[in-house]
């Protein structure tokens, strides 16, 4: 279908980019991206993906907007306090780009429903705030052969990588085989987080999602990015598939989804 005058105007500054053009814009319109968490990472990621014209965005979060979220969760506004985050998020995204189709999942994402939910999407962004969910999303992406763009933040630090074990790269468990024992790693609730750090990592997740959809540039698969806001430094570490990985290794021990207990949440 040809572009409307409004679409040409809305997306002109990216259609004009080398390697995107009308064909790339059509790829974006056909793309379906699932975002785990409508919080600090999911907010900026969802905003940039909707703005870029990603056709369908799935937003999953069972929390409601609270005042202390607003320091970093830019999908939500003060009058949204008390609303489900996915409802508030959908409202923001549709106001930004009425063409964006936003599917919302306000139920808790568990081993019982995650595979069926993500099956419909091309790409998964993890912006969750706890290790049980992080491992659940990784394992589900592995079993469903979905590319996972993972972001994490705490205090002044951030991490980013893309996991594509179905294309030969490592998975999250190749780096972190099991969740840390409860209480050993503080949550954002206990340790705090600078709002702009969430923005930086969330936007990098959106950047990598757009690259994966458009098949341009160098993927973050096999690379792990560490960010520190105080020194304003990025460090990149090469990462490889672990042949002994419990999930994607040669003799895998994990053959179905594992549900770890949600000890605490931020």
């Amino acid at each position, binding site marked *: 279908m*040809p572009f409307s005058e409004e679409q040409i105007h809305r997306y002109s500054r990216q*259609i004009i980019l080398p390697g995107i053009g009308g064909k790339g814009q059509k790829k974006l319109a056909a793309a379906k991206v699932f975002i785990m968490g409508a919080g600090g990472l999911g907010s900026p990621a969802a905003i940039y993906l909707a703005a870029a014209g990603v056709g369908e965005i799935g937003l999953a979060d069972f929390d409601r907007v609270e005042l202390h979220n607003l320091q970093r969760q830019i999908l939500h506004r003060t009058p949204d306090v008390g609303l489900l985050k996915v409802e508030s998020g959908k409202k923001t995204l549709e106001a930004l780009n009425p063409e964006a189709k936003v599917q919302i999942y306000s139920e808790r994402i568990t081993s019982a429903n995650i595979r069926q939910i993500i099956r419909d999407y091309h790409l998964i962004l993890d912006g969750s705030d706890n290790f049980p969910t992080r491992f659940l999303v990784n394992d589900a992406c592995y079993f469903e052969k979905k590319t996972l763009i993972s972001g994490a933040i705490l205090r002044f630090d951030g991490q980013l990588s893309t996991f594509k074990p179905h294309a030969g790269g490592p998975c999250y468990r190749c780096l972190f085989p099991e969740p840390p024992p409860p209480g050993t790693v503080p949550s954002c609730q206990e340790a705090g987080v600078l709002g702009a750090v969430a923005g930086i990592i969330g936007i990098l997740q959106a950047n990598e999602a757009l690259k994966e959809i458009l098949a341009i540039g160098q993927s973050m698969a096999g690379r792990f990015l560490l960010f520190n806001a105080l020194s304003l430094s990025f460090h990149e570490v090469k990462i490889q598939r672990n042949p002994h990985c419990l999930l994607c290794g040669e003799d895998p021990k994990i053959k179905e989804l594992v549900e770890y207990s949600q000890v605490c949440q931020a």
Partner: protein
Amino acid sequence: MDTTGQIDKELNLKGKICPYTFIEAMLTLEDMEREQVLRVIVDYPPAVCDVPRSLKNEGYEILEVSPINETDWAIVVRNKEVG
């Protein structure tokens, strides 16, 4: 150079300004068959230089840029060999 005989499509962009002149020309070329020829009509003076230059940067072959009358210009461009 007389290119009249090999024009496959004409796109009237009179009244359009940059960058929409280039974008609409590129979008039209993307939907055309390889090596087909498009004739673009523009009346926005900067587009006479900018559109051919931008299309050339994208790998399209500019066959002709010529005035039609006091206000309008024709840019004749051949589509890429490969999409």
